[in-house]
């Protein structure tokens, strides 16, 4: 049973590589001033100014995406992730290195490419579909699905300019996800539509995640969506891959990156120091690990017991937080919040989580070490260390009495019929 847990990640290693990015670099020439006019060109020429500066956007980026992966590309604004996406999609050509794609790749750099406000919704669907590579007949086949998903049945013969912006986005998104490509490339498109539509998209992503033939590459700066959907991710910073592999590591690293002080100098020094330690740990916190005490395949009748090992030597108030992640369904069923610790040095804390009510599933326990926040941070506590893939604990709950669908089992529900026919007659 224990082998089942690791099977997930192994499976994706064995499946064929569908997208291979090898040593891709890219730089742009940015004009330093308005160098487009003749006057400026002459002035620049006489002064010997080049008129542009070269900005290196990507340095030697390499990674592989396997079939069935839900691959996240994370980074702050201006880190080069969109440029990378455009190179993958073939819109930009890389300066060096190459990109190999196997299968059809459907890129969505922006939703509703080619949408024209003067055309009707129907015409726009066909136009947008054609740009994504679908002939008239192919779109005919999926047209009803698209309209139904967008919930715009009554508006398809209206001109697009009469749509609300939410409706436009819904239509565009529906075309995008109904498009049947092997590899979907999505650029920060998850935050659209109202709540009901969000839920629909959510279901769709969960669905596509299960399909081993479909590969999705998602570019985002939202940590929630990475943690929820992706199984692998890379973090890009200043055109370099700074973390790659397990999504939770990358997501946590990204959170750390965002928390770092803004002074560039300090940042770089810190980078050097953290590199000597595994992802998530640092000189301040050299050890942080979750040790399972119970079996890794519990049947749920007893609480899951584990130890949290840490080492922290600074004499300031510090806390730990433990979360239980649901691997398959996504989300965080249990979170401890920040719990203050008193003992500095190298210690272990024993914890347990009751599993009585849970259905079958794969769960992961992650922990972080936190301190009081610096003045500018708005959060309650500031994370200084977290458990990476190696240091966190993965377990699978298996019991025949449980089902697979919901997180909590039906034992959580009690039911009683309220009243009878007679009661109704009386009242």
């Amino acid at each position, binding site marked *: 049973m224990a082998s089942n847990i690791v099977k997930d990640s192994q499976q994706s290693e064995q499946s064929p590589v569908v997208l291979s990015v090898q040593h891709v670099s890219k730089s*742009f020439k940015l004009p330093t001033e308005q160098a487009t006019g003749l006057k400026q060109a002459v002035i620049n020429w006489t002064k010997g100014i080049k008129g542009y500066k070269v900005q290196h956007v990507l340095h030697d980026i390499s990674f592989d995406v396997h079939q069935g992966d839900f691959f996240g590309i994370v980074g702050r604004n201006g880190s080069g992730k969109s440029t990378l996406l*455009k190179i993958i*999609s*073939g*819109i*930009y*050509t890389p300066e060096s290195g190459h990109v190999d794609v196997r299968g059809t790749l459907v*890129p969505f*750099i*922006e939703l509703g*490419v*080619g949408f*024209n406000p*003067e*055309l009707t919704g129907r*015409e726009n669907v*066909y*136009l947008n579909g*054609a*740009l*994504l*590579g*679908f*002939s*008239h007949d192919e779109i005919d086949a999926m047209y009803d699905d698209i309209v139904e998903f967008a919930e715009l049945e009554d508006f398809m013969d209206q001109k697009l300019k009469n749509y609300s912006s939410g409706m436009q986005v819904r239509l565009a998104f529906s075309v995008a996800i109904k498009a049947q490509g092997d590899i979907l490339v999505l650029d920060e498109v998850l935050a659209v539509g109202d709540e009901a539509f969000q839920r629909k998209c959510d279901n769709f992503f969960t669905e596509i995640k299960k399909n081993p033939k479909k590969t999705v590459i998602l570019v985002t700066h939202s940590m929630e969506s990475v943690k929820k959907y992706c199984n692998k991710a890379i973090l890009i910073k200043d055109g370099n891959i700074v973390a790659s592999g397990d999504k939770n590591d990358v997501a946590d690293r990204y959170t750390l990156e965002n928390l770092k002080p803004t002074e560039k100098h300090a940042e770089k020094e810190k980078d050097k120091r953290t590199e000597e330690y595994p992802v998530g740990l640092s000189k301040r916190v050299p050890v942080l690990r979750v040790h399972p005490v119970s079996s890794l395949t519990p049947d749920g009748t007893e609480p899951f017991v584990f130890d949290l090992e840490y080492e922290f030597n600074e004499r300031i108030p510090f806390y730990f937080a433990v979360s239980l992640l649901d691997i398959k369904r996504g989300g965080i069923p249990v979170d401890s919040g920040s719990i203050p610790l008193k003992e500095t040095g190298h210690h272990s804390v024993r914890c347990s989580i009751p599993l009585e009510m849970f259905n079958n599933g794969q769960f992961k326990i992650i922990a972080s070490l936190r301190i009081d926040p610096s003045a500018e941070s708005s959060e309650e506590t500031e994370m200084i260390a977290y458990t990476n893939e190696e240091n966190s604990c993965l377990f699978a709950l298996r019991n025949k009495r449980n089902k697979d669908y919901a997180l909590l089992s039906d034992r959580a529900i009690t039911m009683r019929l309220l009243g009878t026919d007679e009661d109704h007659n009386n009242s």
Partner: protein
Amino acid sequence: MNTMIANLRKRYHYSWVVLKELVKTDFQLRYQGSFLGIAWSVLKPLMLFCVMYVVFVRFLKFSDGTPTFPLVLLLGISLWNFFAEATSMGLSAITGRGDLLRKVDFPRYIVVVSATIGALISLAINMCVVVIFCIFSGVVHFTWRVFLLPLNFVEYYLLALGVALLLATLNVYFRDIQHIWEVVMQALFYATPIIYPLSMVTGQLGQHYGPIITKAMLLNPAAQIIQDIRHNLIAPDTTQTVWTEFNHVGYALIPIALTLAILTWGISVFRKHSRKFAEVL
């Protein structure tokens, strides 16, 4: 052979799908919101024809004295309109579609081709009008030369496409091109025998320079094609073409060679730079 066709189909399937949709969209949007809609593509050249007929034939007495001249004038205007429209639309095709080019990877030439095909559709509509006029005027006697017309139109389209590809590429880097091209088109319009008969050139310039200038003008591919189409469709006896003016076939082939050269040049320049369009725009 079958596999070759299958391969070709596979390779150009996407281009074809996109091209069809773009042409359709352009056409739908062209007269969007106007009251007369598609009728404008017939009305506009007809009105232009009326203006030019009144000014040049009635007032300025430009005519070669044949009864077919009004039709020759109408045909010339329709043909020139195609060239003007195809090149000016092609010129701004890439820059105008920047939003698409930055977001989807598709063969860039499609945008230029779709712009020129839009002009080609207008030409087709206009040609129908011209042919109807020809039939009802009763002065035109069609000959076997009508069967040569498709060749002329193919050459004309290739010329327009070559120029459009060239201009579209240049316009990405130098937006001045659109202003320059407007002036060039105006000059070309008067350098091509459209509103005046070619015989007038000889008449005005005398026997010594007249024939030389006439020949030089006919070496312009646009002039050659327009004269050829007039010759083959309406007036085989009175239209001077490159074939009737030069005794030597070698000279007559110069405009055709020029057309092919412009096309090849346009394609090679476009191909070389098209990969950079998304970044430069």
